[in-house]
């Protein structure tokens, strides 16, 4: 754009240089519903939930577990960490691994593996499409799924969405230049993608014609996976909060580059799934403990948030785990039989709560 305008904006902190943040208000008014949800199972870094013929399954590191049989042996284990998981219409599951392979468990293609390709190296989400195909979200062209923080701080928008035929392995790119697509929801003739770094949901048409269009923008946190309930409302997991300071650092290119180069990623000014793990992590003024307590409203690098959207993708309610909560970093949620099952990856908990009557 106009370089002069950019310079003025930067100097005055407005326009693109503005770091104003959507407030946690309206449908996003804070509560502690995630914290009060009874836990189902505790497992390190539960990441993705799916419904299969085995019931609700959750991925944790290299294994799949049944949520209904907490504490049981893993349903399946792999030689690499699981990056994404999707339940397929035939009752099987598609499992994306962090090295880019996709493995089918159960169902029609059970046991089949689609080898990694250089185009798809950062699988973040999988979803079944019509006609037996599989939709794949590739978060970033340059970073793997474990390096999502780097992808955010590098201000990348190199993600893409693919359609893969399980039978032949043939793949087709549906959209590119996405800012970390992290969730997929197939619709009749389109797919809705959560673009984390844009804090937005985007609709991508499946046909040849049509352009992608924003569905929901200005979310107060970074969205990840989402799923549709029986009542057609949509449940969106938001895995980390947006912070003014992060937005500010994203606009401070010099500091940002030096930080990426000189500081370990765990100690960056950046969101994370669980804050407070290390005394070396940066602190914000409002995050000072008073009388030995961290106040729930204090700014934190991690947060727990699930939003309920109506069928038009407008937020109508939300469930929170605030700064002092213990259900942070929710990366996946599923409505099952009137209960919302969610996994707090940051705190290693799968929990569920009834959502009947939940509205802001």
């Amino acid at each position, binding site marked *: 754009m106009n370089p002069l305008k950019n310079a003025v904006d930067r100097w005055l902190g407005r326009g693109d240089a503005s770091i104003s943040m959507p407030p946690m208000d309206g449908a996003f008014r804070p509560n502690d519903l995630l914290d009060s949800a009874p836990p189902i199972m505790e497992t390190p870094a539960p990441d993705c939930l799916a419904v299969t013929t085995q019931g609700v399954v959750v991925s944790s590191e290299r294994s799949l577990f049944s949520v209904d049989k907490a504490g049981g042996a893993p349903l399946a284990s792999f030689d690499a960490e699981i990056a994404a998981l999707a339940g397929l219409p035939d009752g099987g599951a598609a499992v994306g691994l962090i090295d880019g392979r996709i493995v089918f468990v159960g169902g029609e293609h059970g046991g089949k593996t689609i080898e990694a390709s250089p185009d798809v190296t950062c699988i973040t989400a999988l979803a079944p499409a019509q006609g037996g195909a599989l939709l794949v979200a590739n978060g970033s062209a340059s970073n793997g799924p474990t390096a999502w923080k780097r992808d955010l701080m590098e201000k990348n928008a190199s993600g893409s969405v693919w359609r893969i035929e399980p039978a032949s392995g043939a793949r087709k790119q549906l959209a590119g230049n996405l800012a970390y697509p992290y969730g997929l929801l197939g619709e009749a003739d389109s797919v809705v993608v959560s673009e984390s770094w844009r804090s937005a949901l985007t609709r991508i048409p499946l046909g040849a014609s049509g352009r992608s269009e924003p569905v929901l923008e200005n979310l107060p946190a970074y969205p990840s996976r989402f799923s549709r309930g029986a009542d057609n409302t949509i449940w969106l997991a938001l895995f980390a909060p947006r912070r003014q300071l992060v937005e500010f650092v994203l606009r401070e290119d010099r500091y940002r580059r030096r930080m990426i180069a000189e500081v370990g990623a765990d100690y960056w000014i950046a969101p994370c799934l669980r804050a407070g793990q290390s005394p070396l992590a*940066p602190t914000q*003024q409002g995050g000072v403990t008073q009388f030995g307590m961290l106040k729930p409203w204090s700014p934190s690098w991690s947060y727990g948030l699930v939003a309920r959207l109506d069928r038009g993708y407008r937020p109508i309610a939300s469930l929170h785990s605030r700064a002092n909560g213990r259900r942070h970093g929710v990366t996946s949620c599923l409505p099952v039989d009137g209960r919302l099952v969610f996994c707090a990856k940051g705190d290693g908990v799968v929990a569920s709560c009834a959502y009947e009557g939940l509205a802001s």
Partner: protein
Amino acid sequence: MIAELVTRLRYRYVPDHVVGELLGRKWVDNAIPVFLLVAVTAYMAVAIPNFLTLGSVVDTSRQIGEFGLIVIGMAIVMLAGGIDLSVGSNFALANFVALALINIAKWPTEAAIVATIAVGALVGLINGVLIGYLRLRAFLTTLVTLTFIRAVVEFLLQIYSVQIASSDVSSDLMDFVGDGSVLGVPLSLVVLIVIAIVAHIIMTRLRIGWHIAAVGGSRRAAYNAGIPVRRTVCLSYVVSGVLTGLAGVLYAARLSGVGPDTGVGLELTVATAALLGGNSFGGGRGSIGKALMGAVIVSVLINGLVRLGVQTGASAMVVGLVLLLAIAIDVRWGKWRKNLQSKVYVSPGYLALPPCPPFDLAASSPYAMNDRLGDAEIIGLGEIDGPEDIILDMDDNIYCSGRQGDIVRFLAPDYARHEVFAHVGGRPLGMAFDKDDRLLVCIAGMGLYGVDKRRNIQKLTAETNRTPLSVIDDSRMRLADDLDIAPDGTVYFSEATIRYGFEEWVVDSLEGRGNGRIIRYDPATGATRTIVRNLLFANGMCMAHDNKSVLFAETWGCTVKRLWLEGPKAGRTESVISDLPGLPDNINRGSRGDYWVAISGLRTPAYDLAMTEPAFRKRMALRVAGDEWLFPNVNAGCVARFDDTGRVFETLWDLHGKSHTAINSMREHRGYLYVSGVTNNRLGRVKLPDADPQWTGPGSYWGARQ
């Protein structure tokens, strides 16, 4: 590297902080008028030959004499929140009365002068009664007076002007008033100077002057404070009338002529001058000096324009434009200045810290985290709010300085009971006992205080010598932080920063500049002197065991240093520990010839990096909400034990942050270590296995009690 060097040099030598400090001073209001004065004079001096010659200056100064008197009157009225438009015709009336009394009534000159001034005062009194007591609108009322007096003057002129013009009365006194000089200075200028000095003293030093400014600043507040508002307002108009009358006399003496043009449009010129000098239309802000400056600017301008041959209409137009400018400045300046100051005051510096020693659980350094404070015995949970410092007396009672301005005492032996030992106010911080068991305490916002055993509170010092050439007045202490006492009773104490108060210490961390200092207080003479300046948040103070030096902590520098008090290096500072993993706070003696330092927060890599990016921090202060600012990690900390050589022996941490996340002070006492924290609601103590179980702090300083 080059870029780094450039940044470092730029932030060392360009004094960014001065701009904000300048904008904080009241006298900076005069910057615009002074600039205008210089600019106008310089322009005229260049454009008009002989503009600055003696004759020309004397001529101009006679006019300035008359004009300035009226401007002073106007400024006083404006200061009280009003305006006096009637000065134009009042001036004409005074001119007429003076000439009529001398030439027609043949009054003695002295009597005529007094009577003329009285007439001026009468007009002012009419204005004053109408506006002050009947509370009519100043603008409309004086507009009516202006028109009315003008009509009276014209009426009188029709009758008497010929008689005055044809009169042959001459008066030496009148000639002297008109043309005379004192030591080469025209009399009217002398009168102006004398009046200005008197008026300045009245306005700045006497009760009535303060009343006038108070009424103009806030009428209601002045009323509530018991100031007679109506009388004060009335008086300001009388003063304006008197000065206008006096100016009329000077004018009459100089020109000895009456005409319908006398004083026409004068009110506008006078108002322009008063405003341009920096007196506010709204009242409450202004001074005699500003009025004089405005008067000189406008006189020079008008004189210059006349001598440049500019037509009368054009000259009036210029005055009108200047008036517009003055109004604009008057309305905008205060706001601009505040906005600008808030944008530029915070001026971060470049601070490159040495590599941070590792302190993780497995680290081999003495800083390795442990949980030795995790099971500390808790004292007074919920009974105290933010104990910054903690100290024990010879009877084992604990004293701590709380947020509400209290020094709270927990009573030995079990510390179950507590009482407010003394309410000192402010924010008490560091404490120390002197040899008479008096508790000396540094109080943020107040200074150095003492509380004796009978709980009498006494101020020891709150002021030190001002730093030469410092823009902000740093003689008054804003953030006295910690102290220690030498054997001869001399108190060495730190002031963390001279630029911020206690509640804003965070902003000082953002600056990371040397804003702190060490001050010496001598109880024998009562003298207070600053002995070390430009310290990075001077914090904990502790006399070395041999009393030859005092140790102090520079919080932002993450260092403990030593200031030599005697010996070959007296007066010099040297580093003791240069690379702490966090922010040192209070330092106190230990029982084994060693010292304890509280590390009240930890460095984080992102913070260390930001300290080398001043521009980044400056923008952060402007853009990001305070709650979201990057901050040193004060949610974790420890206490460290070290010796005179700077060797660190051990550290004590509360690993899980159960009780003592951040620790600001600690004292060793009879084999225990007592800790306190400024964001905590409890005290704690742990047993020290190898410590001397008899050792006490006061005993270490003043010897065992008999």
